[in-house]
């Protein structure tokens, strides 16, 4: 755990209660840097990658290869005026705060590429991450209601329906992996894959996890609640400035979290020969991230009824069947 490490260094120089506070502050600053850097960098990757698919250049002007473009955009957002009127102030402001904090908390809970390299370590961290992911329907409904806008309301309803349809499949898949490894803690799950990756003999589970994960974070092609064409931006429509910036950051954090979860649960996390574990983790997570980012640029968006039908008729039964098979496998 990062905190223990920092604390052990700080306590050499400063006496006990103060050292605790100082190391806490250091940790907080570190966490802010890491959680702010990751989404902005992933956002850059997404923009460059989509540009390559669409035969464009993508950002080029700000920084080397346009690396600082997203920082520039976020800075610009800070200066934007707040224009929504007739809103429910509490509901309106509640959502971006919770989206941002819950997304950052997810990053803090997950180990960043090596056992013990996490900011907060709790048992059942996987379940807690899932809870933070699955909090969205409430947020969407609150935001859609608070914005006093019909597009937002319809977007909120759609979002709640979609996420409820898919989060069940996600937790079932999560449970089947936990069943296999006998634990909900990530180091234990990774350790369980030392002989063979779960993704290799549970490919269907991996697929269900990626699909339902994309649906929960509303990544295209599952961005029906946002539907920038018909609903403009769905439940985000009235947000502007840094409130909208929080959503953007939150989106990329969630994409990163899904990629990290896939790596930990199915691709053996930091396990690998020769190279150090962190490097293995980064390579795997980057590949998964690219795969996750791709559908947005090559698929259209299904209709909401098709999406929900797919969730309940195919994904959920498949996930349950999968759970039963895994259970049988474990028992036998």
């Amino acid at each position, binding site marked *: 755990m990062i905190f223990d490490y920092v604390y052990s260094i700080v306590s050499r120089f400063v006496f006990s209660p103060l050292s605790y506070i100082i190391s806490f502050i250091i940790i907080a600053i570190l966490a802010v840097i890491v959680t702010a850097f990751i989404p902005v960098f992933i956002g850059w990757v997404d923009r460059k990658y989509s540009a390559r*698919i669409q035969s464009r250049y993508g950002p080029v002007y700000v920084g080397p290869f346009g690396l600082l473009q997203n920082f520039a955009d976020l800075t610009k957002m800070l200066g934007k005026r707040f224009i929504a009127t007739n809103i429910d102030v509490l509901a309106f402001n509640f959502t971006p705060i919770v989206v941002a904090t819950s997304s950052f908390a997810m990053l803090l809970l997950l180990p960043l590429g090596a056992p013990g390299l996490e900011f907060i370590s709790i048992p059942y961290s996987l379940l807690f991450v899932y809870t933070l992911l699955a909090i969205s329907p409430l947020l969407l409904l609150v935001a859609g209601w608070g914005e006093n806008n019909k597009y937002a309301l*319809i977007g909120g309803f759609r979002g709640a329906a979609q996420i409820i349809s898919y989060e069940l499949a996600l937790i079932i898949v999560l449970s089947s992996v936990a069943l296999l490894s006998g634990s909900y803690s990530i180091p234990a799950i990774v350790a369980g894959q030392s002989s063979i990756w779960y993704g290799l003999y549970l490919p269907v589970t991996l697929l269900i996890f990626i699909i339902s994960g994309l649906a929960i974070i509303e990544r295209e*092609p599952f961005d*029906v609640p946002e539907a*920038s064409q018909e609903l403009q931006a769905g439940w985000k429509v009235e947000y502007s400035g840094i409130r909208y910036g929080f959503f953007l950051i939150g989106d990329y954090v969630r994409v990163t979290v899904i990629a990290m979860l896939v790596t930990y649960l199915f691709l053996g996390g930091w396990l690998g020969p020769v190279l150090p574990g962190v490097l293995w983790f980064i390579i795997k997570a980057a590949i998964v991230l690219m795969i996750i980012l791709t559908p947005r640029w090559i698929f*259209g*968006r299904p*209709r*909401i009824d098709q999406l929900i039908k797919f969730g309940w008729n195919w994904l959920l039964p498949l996930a349950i069947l999968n759970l039963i098979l895994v259970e049988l496998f474990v028992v036998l």
Partner: protein
Amino acid sequence: MEHKDRIRMNIGPVHPAMHGVLKLILDVEGDTVVKAEPEIGFLHRASEKIAEMRYFSNYYPIMDKLDYVSALNMEILYASTVEKAAGITISERATYMRTIMAEIQRIMSHLIFIGSLGEDFGNLTSFIWALRERELLMTIVEKISGGRLAPMYMCNGGMFYDFPEGIDKDILEALDKIENKVKHEYSAVFTKNQIFLSRTKGIGIMTKDMIKRYGITGPIARASGINRDLRKVSPYLAYDKVDFDVPVEENGDTYSRFIVRLNEILESIKIIRQCLKQLPAGNYKTAVPWIIRIPKKDTFVKQESSRGEMGIFLVTDGSDKPYRLKLRSPTFFAIRALEELLVNVKVADAFVIVASIDPVMGEVDR
């Protein structure tokens, strides 16, 4: 409102998925549209009134801005009308050149349609790809006329300039590229894409009866099994000297409308290739004075524009300006069908259906 669970959505005139400034008033129950009312007129610029104040030669820039996605078709239509009314005959080379320009513009317009249809259900890549192919032809139009979106190339009696040297090579090269993309890449992105198929097949079905009732023409009518193309029915320009097919589909859904336009691109490529091969030497322009006077008469000319049959009813009174110029726009009729088409569809489908009509509001509102 009497229905408690009904929401009235005013979509447009400023809305990212609305083509231009179309406004739709949708009554929505949950995610289903129960009543739809299209509202137009937000781009009304009184083009018909402007015509009464301008010399015949000075109206071309206004024609450009009607259907700004296929501006050359508009110019050719107006030029044909004025020439018919004034009894000006254009050289054979000019008819071929106009045919080539009209078909280049048709391909560009249909590429925009394909892109925006994909874009309207979330596939941004298709839009950018379509624009990439359109850019090839844009460059050629720029080389020929000097303009891009509103080229201002036609004039009474022919064209302002001749084709530049070696342009036929450029055109053929661009056409080869586009044909390759349309035949292979687009079929992979669209016609083999399950999400695309599920979003377009069986959506927004227009029956033959409906087409005839609303007076819809062009690709939309041909997607519903009506085999009518003015280029075949009453050949104008050089269309009777080239060999091409009229793509017709039977189902009348959004997918058929897509396929008809996709095939029309291939047919247009065929036409341009033949025209370039047959392109005769000669004058590109008949000398016509800038200010002409046309005796009192009525002239009605209709041509197949990218969106259907565009017509001009020109009333002249012997002066140097039109006495009355009425524009018959195809999408003006097609948009009215949205009242019926959008009922009982999902909100998401409503936008795909609007995109499949392919309205350009400049031409609807005039």
